[in-house]
């Protein structure tokens, strides 16, 4: 599974399909950082750590 697909999966898990769709507007290079930043802001560092494994 690619980085974007993994990000989409996590964003759908945390916020729902609307946020997952947002990942389509990101690139393979920046999607992890952008998603991690959003998850960190709303849910905290612990939840954001999941993105470290991508």
């Amino acid at each position, binding site marked *: 599974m690619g980085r974007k697909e993994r990000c989409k999966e996590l*964003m*759908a*898990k*945390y*916020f*729902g*399909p*609307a*946020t*997952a*769709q*947002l990942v389509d507007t990101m690139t393979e290079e920046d999607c992890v950082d952008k998603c991690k930043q*959003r*998850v*960190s*802001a*709303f*849910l*905290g560092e612990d*939840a954001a750590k999941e993105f470290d494994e991508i």
Partner: protein
Amino acid sequence: MEELNLIWMQGQTCDGDSMSVIDAERPNFLTFLERNKINLLYHPTISPIFGRDAQRLFNDCMEGKIRIDIFIFEGSVPTKEGYGEYFEGQDVGGMVRNFASKSMLTIAVGTCAAFGGVPAAPPNESGAVGLQWHGYTKGGFLGEEYIAGLGFPVINIPGCPTHPDWVINTLQSFRLGRPVLLDKFNRPKDYFEEKVHRGCKHCEFHERGIWAKNYTEVGCFAAKLGCKGRTTNSDCNIRLWNGVSSCTRSGAPCIGCTDPGFPVSMVPFDEETLALPDDVQAEIDARKRVIYGGESQ
């Protein structure tokens, strides 16, 4: 968990949604914000700042000096000159566009902010529209393509007024990482998937075809008093208001205030104005057969 900045603005409003949300219980609004590390930058009713201080805050927000994470708007947006287009000396439309472009979440609280509501009813002299809808039509003030930083369109939490739980629980979902699903009018499904009819204490009269002819009579309000509960989506009769009641439980028909067509499509309130959609009629007929073994009289 980072602290999130919330700014609450008003357009053409009666202040009813603010009053409703401020009256939240278990927890109350301010306790909720504190527990969830949400910093209320400004609220027209409960903020201690006004005048020049408020203007300074708005300017700082618009210039990006202060981050806006959650933007809540109450009331419709006037689009014609001379109709309340200024708030604390600022152009309301410009402020709405600016804040919406920066926020991670944009939430329309109340039917006026969501769909235009009362100010958008004919003759609509102020050119009032909702943030992203005008009645049943998508577009509104921000346009149908608008999405906020978290990928959501304007999240519509209608009602006249809105139920405080709908607002607080939606915000809470985003703080807990609980997915928020929206219906076709961008309302959270958690609160707007059920019909008002569900859980109404007059349901058994409806199923048996016993219709009240005036407000004090025993019976269902649908046929003779124009109750819109069968076609209006909201969980009023499951969640209840103030934990104990609802419009229909307190002896008044539902006027369909969470529907995008409110109030235009709902008047006259005391006459049946909307035909039942096929799926609703089929569900009602099926229930009648199960409970009473036949159709109503």
